[in-house]
């Protein structure tokens, strides 16, 4: 296999344009879903509730809890797609901590949830798609009774979704019931218009920006490749060097 160097140069520039254009196409696809809808307020029943961001479109996912959250026992939460199955490289992450526990004066102490099998100590949890479960499985332990708040983010294909999360961990023994419900998550599309401005940017703006970026990047690569050649020509093949020994 012989690769011509001019071919390599063209391959580099083409790769730059193709990469940026791919991001453009994917991101624009996600951004196109962002519309202004009012979806405020907590949604859900039982121990788990979510609150989508106001002013965003939402998409529903199925949340299944293996048991009522109880300190000392792990709760298995399975999140699955509703309108379509989850993508194989889906990923969910988030954080949950208790409400402020007053210690002395105004200072607070927080209890953090613990994900089984993780060494993270600040309430972070994350998990990939599990083909066996047909969704993402998160096992969480609750250090104390009380209300836990935080957030959940999900990357599922070209979707970026999130919601504020609230979980009630109660006293007593875990029950045998499973809690399953459909809950809405905000579709971010990485482009939330500021609430103060109210109006989303024009749809063509983002594709145009990425297209301009692709052109600038290709021009930059061309500049980077051509500058050494120009220096070589200017120096007439005689760049500075040590005297030969």
């Amino acid at each position, binding site marked *: 296999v012989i*690769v011509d160097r001019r071919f390599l140069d063209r391959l580099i520039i083409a790769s730059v344009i193709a990469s940026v254009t791919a991001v453009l196409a994917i991101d624009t696809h996600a951004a196109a879903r962002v519309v202004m809808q009012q979806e405020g307020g907590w949604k859900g029943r039982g121990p788990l509730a979510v609150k989508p961001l106001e002013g965003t479109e939402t998409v529903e996912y199925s949340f299944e809890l293996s048991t009522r959250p109880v300190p000392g026992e792990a709760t298995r939460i399975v999140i699955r797609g509703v309108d379509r199955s989850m993508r194989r490289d889906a990923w969910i992450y988030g954080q949950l901590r208790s409400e402020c526990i007053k210690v002395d004066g105004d200072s607070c102490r927080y209890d953090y949830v613990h994900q089984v099998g993780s060494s993270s100590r600040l309430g972070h949890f*994350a998990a990939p798609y599990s083909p066996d479960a047909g969704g993402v499985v998160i096992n969480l332990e609750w250090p104390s009774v009380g209300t836990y708040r935080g957030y959940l983010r999900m*990357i599922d294909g070209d979707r*970026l979704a999130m919601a504020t999360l609230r979980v009630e961990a109660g006293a007593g023994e875990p029950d045998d019931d499973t809690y399953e419900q459909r809950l809405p998550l905000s579709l971010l599309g990485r482009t939330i218009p500021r609430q103060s401005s109210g109006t989303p940017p024009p749809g063509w703006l983002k594709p145009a920006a990425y297209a301009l970026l692709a052109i600038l990047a290709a021009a930059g690569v061309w500049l980077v490749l051509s500058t050494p050649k120009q220096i070589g020509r200017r120096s007439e093949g005689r760049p500075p060097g040590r005297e030969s020994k």
Partner: protein
Amino acid sequence: MSAILSAVKADSAAASVQTGLAEGADAFYRMPVLMSVVAGSLLQIVGVYWDIAWHIEVGRDKLFSAPHIAILAGIGFVGVSAILALSYGERNPAIKRSATLVLLGVAIQVVALAVVDDWWHRVYGIDATLWSPPHLLTLFAASVALFGFLLGAVYGSASVPRSKSIAVLGIGLANLLILTNVALAEYDFSFPQFRLAYQPVVLGATTIFCLVLAKRIVRRSATATIVAGAFMLLRLAMWPVLGALGRSSRPYFPAAIVAGIVIDLATMRGGSPSDGKKSETVHVAVTSLVATVAFLLAETLFASALEDAFGLPPSPYGMHSFVTGGIPAIVAGTVAGLAGFRLASLVQSVSKETAIW
């Protein structure tokens, strides 16, 4: 300021007369230039990771937040280094071109970050991603600026002691690896905003590109390993730095040293044909492919080990991302290795002293 520049020019001319070399060829090795570049690069690296941790823990508040000021100051220092280099080598076309490239990169960075990015956040809100057009443009412009510095350093390498040129180029190339890996910072902080399959693709491409470039420019037996090791140490240093700045987030850093070792070993074992032969391209392609596979596989183990040892949040750097992104990542790493090889060949063409490296 004009008095300082006049002194710089006189100093440059005197040095050139003494060494008998092209005037100002060593412009990028002068201490003020090196100090400005190092300070500027460190400020930018710390600023970027500080800014992302700030976004995650605090949110984006305003243009002149503390991390943004650190980044802009870093860009300013790099700009100053280019102006100084221009002054040292004002009669040297090669230095002028290299310094101009640095200045162009700096100018685009300033416009992209201080003007376009601020406007972008006002239009699209606080939840924009690191892969937004202004952010990507800033990263790309920073890479162009750093390339200008490397080009000037390669050109002037024969006019300074060999150990100095190797050290400066090594630091510059490690800096390039850090800079290109900034693109993955959201994954590093376990806060990804794009699908996981992209992460091994970008990781493989940026790492193999930089390490092959380093290996071909500084032809020492352990160049790629040392550059990758320096990259990992600098990234690890972000942990105490972010802690000192009041942030609790600790970004993951990839096991790039595995790729470095493979690239060094492939060359040491006599598999690198001499320059100019077509088979050299094939050798680079095979080396890049093997290095990418070894690197990405090692990454899955390293991510798990780091999480267990230091209590990092569960990381998206795992087998699950490589299951979906592994094949494109191996292709990207191989193509990137060839691109690094080609760029190194072009860079080397500005100096006849390649045999010393």
